[in-house]
């Protein structure tokens, strides 16, 4: 939670006027809640055939001077250690420590990104040591839905197997791995994310999402939602959900979003919840409306409601009534219709009873696999990402174009965090508080990102859909680091993998090789 919205509201109340709060870029960097610095100690057990046997993990996250959302972040890191692979035994200790620095928070892929990085890198290193194919190691350990993890996370659908197949084929992995020229490499990794936290952040007993729907004499359907479209396309998703449920043309549906005077409250765009929860609430609202329209059409057609087919033309057998006439019939005596739909995650999906057990619980996990191809400059140790192949299981792509955009966006964001974005402090002062020093990738070094969509048809998602925006992020950093290992045989432990870190690792390797040969010579 950021404080300046509240501060601004209180100031406006006190001033009895409008208050504008303006933040410079530097202030934005200081006050926003970035991902915490995360140190991870991870131990994995694996049989010679690649089956995971146990996992022990200690995570320390550097918070700031305030806890903020930090407890959730450290719990997420432990919870989402699970949910991809079948791990028979897990021990997790998380420490979130205060520091005399700005607070941290929930950055895309809340708490799970660094954890996933450590995990997928270690799996790769173990596979190498055991001379096993990294794809195979992932495949033999995949969870089989429907199932529950040790920490009581419910997995209802999983298309990760198909994701792995797709990126393996598309990248030409089998033909190319081990045969690339010097300085070039391929790496892969998997990741996942929740489709909305099954436990709401409020503990009021209210539903997880409410959508209102209105039908007036002109035949226009208006969906009212508190979900703010922050560029991810949530309003389009609501329109499609309503149009699809009623079988009507998309241009009949208008969405009013995030106007607190008229829209029902929404919990917000966190934990990738909007498609799953608001989408389901929109479908529910549209179904209620459909019930009324079907009854009106049945009256007009003198048929049973269960025989009526809904759409731009309502049909019973050969008989047809235009949508406008059905609307006119439905509005007789009633006038404009306003209804609402809602969605609630049942208790059984809300996680285990252990402390922090609710964190990471969801009704549907998205799954992603990706392959990254890199080149490393032999003079500067600069890393170039040549191409990324990514496949995401989003259950069902309600809006294919938006899903592709979201996947590219999350891969690209993962790339920034893997390669160049870093928050550092000099004597407690931010050294990164500008876009010159906080280095987001530019289009010049952004690679082609080939997206494949996998549809596992989740039993509870709207039309089978799951989230599509965060799941692919966490796979990029480990896929990159694994690709670097493949290219130059260096295992990097720190992110971002800036060229100076690559150079340091290479210098260290040369030093160790010299020491080893010196020892050999003297013995």
């Amino acid at each position, binding site marked *: 939670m950021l404080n300046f919205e509240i501060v601004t509201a209180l100031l406006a109340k006190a001033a009895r006027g409008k208050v504008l709060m303006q933040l*410079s870029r530097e202030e934005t960097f200081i006050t926003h809640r970035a991902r915490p610095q995360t140190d991870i100690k991870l131990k994995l057990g694996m049989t010679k055939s690649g089956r995971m046997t146990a996992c022990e993990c200690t995570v320390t996250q550097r918070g700031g001077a305030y806890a903020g959302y930090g407890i959730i972040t450290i719990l997420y890191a432990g919870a989402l250690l699970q949910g991809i692979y079948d791990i028979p035994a897990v021990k997790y200790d998380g420490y979130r420590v205060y520091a005399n620095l700005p607070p941290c928070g929930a950055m895309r892929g809340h708490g799970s990104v660094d954890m996933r990085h450590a995990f997928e890198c270690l799996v790769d290193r173990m596979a190498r040591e055991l001379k096993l194919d990294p794809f195979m190691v992932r495949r033999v350990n995949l969870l089989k839905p429907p199932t529950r993890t040790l920490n009581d996370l419910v997995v209802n659908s999983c298309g990760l197997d198909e994701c792995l197949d797709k990126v393996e084929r598309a990248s030409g992995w089998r033909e190319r791995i081990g045969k690339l020229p010097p300085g070039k490499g391929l790496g892969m990794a998997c990741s996942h994310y929740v489709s909305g936290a099954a436990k709401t952040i409020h503990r009021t007993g209210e539903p997880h999402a409410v959508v209102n729907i209105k039908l007036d004499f002109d035949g226009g359907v208006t969906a009212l939602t508190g979900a703010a479209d922050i560029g991810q396309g949530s309003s389009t998703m609501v329109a499609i959900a309503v149009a699809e449920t009623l079988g009507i043309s998309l241009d009949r549906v208008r969405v009013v979003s995030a106007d607190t005077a008229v829209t029902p409250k929404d919990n917000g765009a966190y934990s990738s919840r909007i498609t799953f929860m608001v989408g389901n609430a929109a479908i529910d609202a549209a179904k209620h409306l459909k019930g009324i329209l079907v009854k009106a059409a049945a009256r007009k057609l003198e048929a049973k409601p269960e025989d009526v087919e809904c759409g731009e033309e309502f049909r019973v057998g050969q008989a047809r009534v235009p949508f406008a006439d059905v609307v006119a019939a439905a509005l007789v005596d009633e006038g404009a219709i306003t209804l609402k739909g809602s969605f609630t995650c049942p208790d059984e999906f809300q996680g285990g009873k252990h402390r922090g057990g609710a964190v990471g619980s969801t009704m549907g996990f998205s799954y992603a696999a990706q392959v990254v191809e890199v080149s490393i400059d032999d003079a500067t140790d600069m890393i170039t990402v040549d191409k990324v192949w990514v496949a995401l299981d989003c259950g069902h792509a309600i809006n294919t174009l938006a899903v592709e955009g979201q996947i590219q966006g999350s891969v690209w964001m993962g790339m920034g965090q893997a390669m160049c974005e*870093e928050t550092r402090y000099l004597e407690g002062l931010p050294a990164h508080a500008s876009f010159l020093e906080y280095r987001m990738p530019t289009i010049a070094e952004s690679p082609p990102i080939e997206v494949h969509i996998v549809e596992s048809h989740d039993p509870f998602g709207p039309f089978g859909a799951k989230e599509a925006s965060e799941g692919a992020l966490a796979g990029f950093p480990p896929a990159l680091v694994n690709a670097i290992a493949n290219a130059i045989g260096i295992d990097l432990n720190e992110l971002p993998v800036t060229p100076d870190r690559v150079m340091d690792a290479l210098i260290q390797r040369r030093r160790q090789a010299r020491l080893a040969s010196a020892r050999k010579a003297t013995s």
Partner: protein
Amino acid sequence: MTASLADFRIVHPTTVKDAIAARRQQPPSRFIAGGTDLIVNIRRGIIRPELLIDLSGIDELSEIRADGDGVTIGAGVTIATLASDPIIVSRYRAVAQAAEGIAGPGHRVMGTVGGNLCLDTRCIYYNQSEWWRSANSYCLKNRGDTCHVAPQGNRCHATFSGDLAPALLVFGAVIDIAGPQSQRRIPLSELYVEDGRAHLALAEDDLVVSVRVPANPPASLYEKVRARGAIDFPLAGVAVALAKSADTIGSLRIALTGTNSRPFLLTDTENFVGRFVDDKLLQEIDRLVQKQVQPMRTTLVSANYRRVAAAAVARRLVSKLSSS
């Protein structure tokens, strides 16, 4: 904390003479051309001029002129114009590459040759907001008395980061400087001093009006090491000009930026004349660069990285030029 741009007056002279006269009359003033660096520093409260003297209306500064003896580039020529000038692109490749690599497209349209040659030095402790610098008791370069990069020393280590200077230095460029009394010509290398606080050998009312490179240049290349493929200042930038004589080196100049408080020509490269370019020679060049550069902790990327990368790039460019 939000700093707004401080008040200043601005005048628009149309001749070099008027520009210099304006500068003499009312310090604290500054010349401004593209403003891509200056305005940022004014906004951050690092420099507080009362008067800005806009050079963009002085036509004589914005010409590229080629004659039998070489090419004269006006200080007001924009980086974008320089990067796409046919003569520069075909004969002075290092200069075109350096220009093309500066910042982003928007900066190159606004920024000028003179501005890039006279670019202020940079440091992670200096290029910060007023709030930041004051919280850190300022620094030796600006209002403070300690260099946070090297607190024991007594000099400022802010780094010169212009890309054009090394590319011009390898051609033995000279610059014309207009002063209140007269115009003078000096080698470009003499414009720079190894002092981050005062790295330009210019009087307050001196104005760099043009830079000149001789005709019949040797083949050249420029490469900059930077975190991203665009926008960033060089962590190290290397220009090399190499003329071959039969299969050996006829002449070799190497210049660097981003590693010291000044751009500089590597000394002792004349010892390589007459030698074949082989692994041994490339190793010697690598060592020479590593010995002469002095990167300090002025950026978030380590000094050692910048040293090693500068040397490796120099080696690569020499190798490329010798085999082309």
